[in-house]
């Protein structure tokens, strides 16, 4: 099998190199057509993302193609060929198939399980389809990679748990409140991380967002961005009577909410649960508050702990995913190997059917007195003989064996057939 993968990713090349080798916008089309035009290149797909640039090809000769592709990249991006030596990886055959399946399933990603890569791979494949640079092999391989990724997604929990501070906040909020679209969020202070957490909550569809910042104007600006409203900083305790989720990051050196203040707030809230995320360092919310009923307080270390647990679980799930991929690689290889034998099997069957048809016709012409029933019996017998005779050679050809090429050649010679 002459599938060849040439590429680089975040593990071996830093962003500077990745940028230089990227195929973006019109250059993708240009690059794809250039590759397809190289001598011995039958099919090509180019995947270019911020973390990886990979070229998937079906070539006549792997060794010649490796040199050709290196030369092409060097010329296309204006980089000296020797600089590419250490930056690129070359994978072929089984390794190439496994690599593509791992990429699609996000096992090769910077954050294992992140879902974007599958979409990017689909786009790359669709673009190649549109430009007609793929054929039977890469079409099958790409479709299989997409279905393998989906299988990994459904059979493992690789992408289920949040692995960033802001997503962990959303995940926890969902376990405290049933439907966060009914909930309101208050941003206390406007630190960068708090803003990001708020952004995730907003995209999860929270009902209302309120910003309380020391600099009121900045609060107004931020609230506008989220489609929410701003309140004066000294009003935030009052506002907390109605808010369900509070994200705090004021940068103040001391606690801005004390236990006594929180008690008063909870009383006014009639003990309605509140989830507080304190991202500030040093902490802005008195940790004692976490002991209060219906108040759930997480600081940045707590969230990091959640992420670490999730990461560990993703690793465990990634092991399961590797098992699925190993299985799927074998299935794909079997399909590929069966391709070799298909023309020979078809030719064998055509030859046998031809003989059968000819001999039945001859016999029936000689014996016109035969009735419908007898004619059918003769045809049935002839079909049975043909099927039984070609059964064993067909099975042998379909089998996954080392001497398949020899078998194909032998059958062609023995039966005098010319299947391509």
């Amino acid at each position, binding site marked *: 099998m002459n599938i060849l993968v040439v590429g680089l990713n975040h593990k071996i090349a830093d962003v500077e190199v990745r940028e230089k080798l990227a195929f973006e916008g019109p250059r993708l089309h240009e690059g794809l057509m250039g590759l397809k035009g190289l001598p011995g290149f039958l099919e090509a797909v180019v995947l270019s993302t911020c973390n990886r640039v990979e070229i998937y090809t079906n070539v006549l000769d792997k060794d010649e193609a490796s040199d050709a592709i290196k030369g092409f990249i060097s010329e296309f991006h204006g980089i000296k060929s020797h600089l590419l030596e250490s930056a690129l990886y070359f994978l072929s055959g089984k390794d190439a198939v496994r690599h593509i399946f791992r990429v699609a399933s996000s096992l090769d990603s910077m954050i294992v399980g992140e879902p974007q890569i599958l979409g990017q791979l689909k786009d790359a494949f669709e673009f190649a389809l549109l430009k007609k640079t793929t054929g039977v092999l890469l079409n099958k391989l790409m479709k299989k990679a997409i279905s393998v990724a989906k299988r990994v997604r459904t059979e493992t929990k690789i992408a*289920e*748990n949040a692995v960033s501070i802001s997503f962990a906040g959303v995940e*926890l909020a*969902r*376990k*405290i*409140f*049933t439907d966060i679209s009914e909930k309101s969020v208050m941003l206390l202070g406007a630190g960068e991380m708090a803003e990001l957490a708020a952004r995730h909550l907003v995209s999860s569809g929270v009902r209302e967002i309120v910003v309380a910042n020391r600099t009121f104007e900045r609060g107004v600006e931020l609230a506008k961005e989220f489609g929410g409203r701003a309140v004066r900083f000294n009003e935030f305790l009052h506002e907390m009577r109605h808010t369900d989720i509070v994200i705090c990051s004021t940068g103040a050196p001391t606690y801005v909410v004390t236990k006594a203040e929180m008690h008063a707030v909870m009383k006014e*809230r*009639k*003990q*309605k*649960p509140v989830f507080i995320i304190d991202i500030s360092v040093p902490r802005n919310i008195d940790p004692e508050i*976490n002991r209060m*009923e*219906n108040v*759930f307080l*997480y600081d940045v270390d*707590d969230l990091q*702990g*959640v992420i670490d*647990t999730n990461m560990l*679980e993703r690793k465990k799930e990634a092991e399961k995913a590797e098992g699925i991929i190993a299985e799927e690689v074998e299935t794909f290889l079997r399909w590929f190997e069966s391709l070799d034998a298909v023309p020979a099997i078809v030719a064998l069957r055509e030859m046998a059917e031809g003989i059968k048809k000819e001999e039945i016709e001859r016999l029936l012409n000689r014996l016109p007195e035969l009735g419908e029933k007898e004619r059918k019996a003769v045809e049935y017998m002839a079909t049975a003989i043909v099927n039984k005779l070609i059964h064993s050679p067909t099975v042998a050809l379909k089998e996954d064996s080392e001497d398949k090429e020899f078998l194909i050649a032998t059958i062609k010679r023995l039966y005098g057939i010319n299947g391509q």
Partner: protein
Amino acid sequence: MDTGTLSFELALTLYLAAVLIGIIELFKSTKTTSRFMLVIAGFGFFSHSISIIYRYVIAGHIPISNAHEATSFFSWCIVFMFFIIEFRYRIGLLGSFIMPIVFVLMLSSSMLPREIKDLSPMLQSNWLGIHTVFAFLGNAAFAMAFGIGVMYLVQERFVRSKHIGDLFRRLPSLQSLDEINYRLITWGFPLFTLAIITGSLWANTAWGSYWRWDPREVWSLVTWLIYATILHARLLAGWRGKRAAILSIIGFLTILIAFFGIKLLEKGRHVFL
């Protein structure tokens, strides 16, 4: 073995199987486990229903005239309520918390004398069915609130301990659990109140007095007061979440004491149970 006994034993076995699947599900869940547990519990419920119908036909009255029958009928009501809640809210893990209660009740029922006796003249009244069905359905709703309360405490512990795991993800949100708990008590409370009212009306017809401070009557009053407190405190003082969960657990334990404890005392008019 007659049909009634056979179907009772089968129900007991199927409930045990549901408990075991429920335990497996707590530790290691696959998509099929919770469905499988529902199917097994469903077959158990079907078989259990046959055993109750059989006794009803043989005895000619609702089969709650001795401790074996009453315990069996109580667990039947709990499974019935469990299916209502499961189909309404699709909690999934609820069976892991409820089926052990059902199984323990059924196991105790299986160990009690099973002969079908004629109803004592005192019990030969239409009030028997009305009073007991209200009481058992109300108690079944409280049993469900107990299960949900335990789930709440488990989930709350996960959220507070900040060490989240697989079970944390599979348990419903705290808000859902709290709301379902509250809903169940609002179902159970009127049913239980009706049971007390019909019971006292019946007592007046049978014995000429509405209330005689019989131990079970006292315990029923205690139970009623506990649930009245939960509802009252929730509405007025905002007692929700953990406190409501703990109170609903205490409430159900009181019911169990009333159910089994008083039987041991062998006093009062409810000793036939």
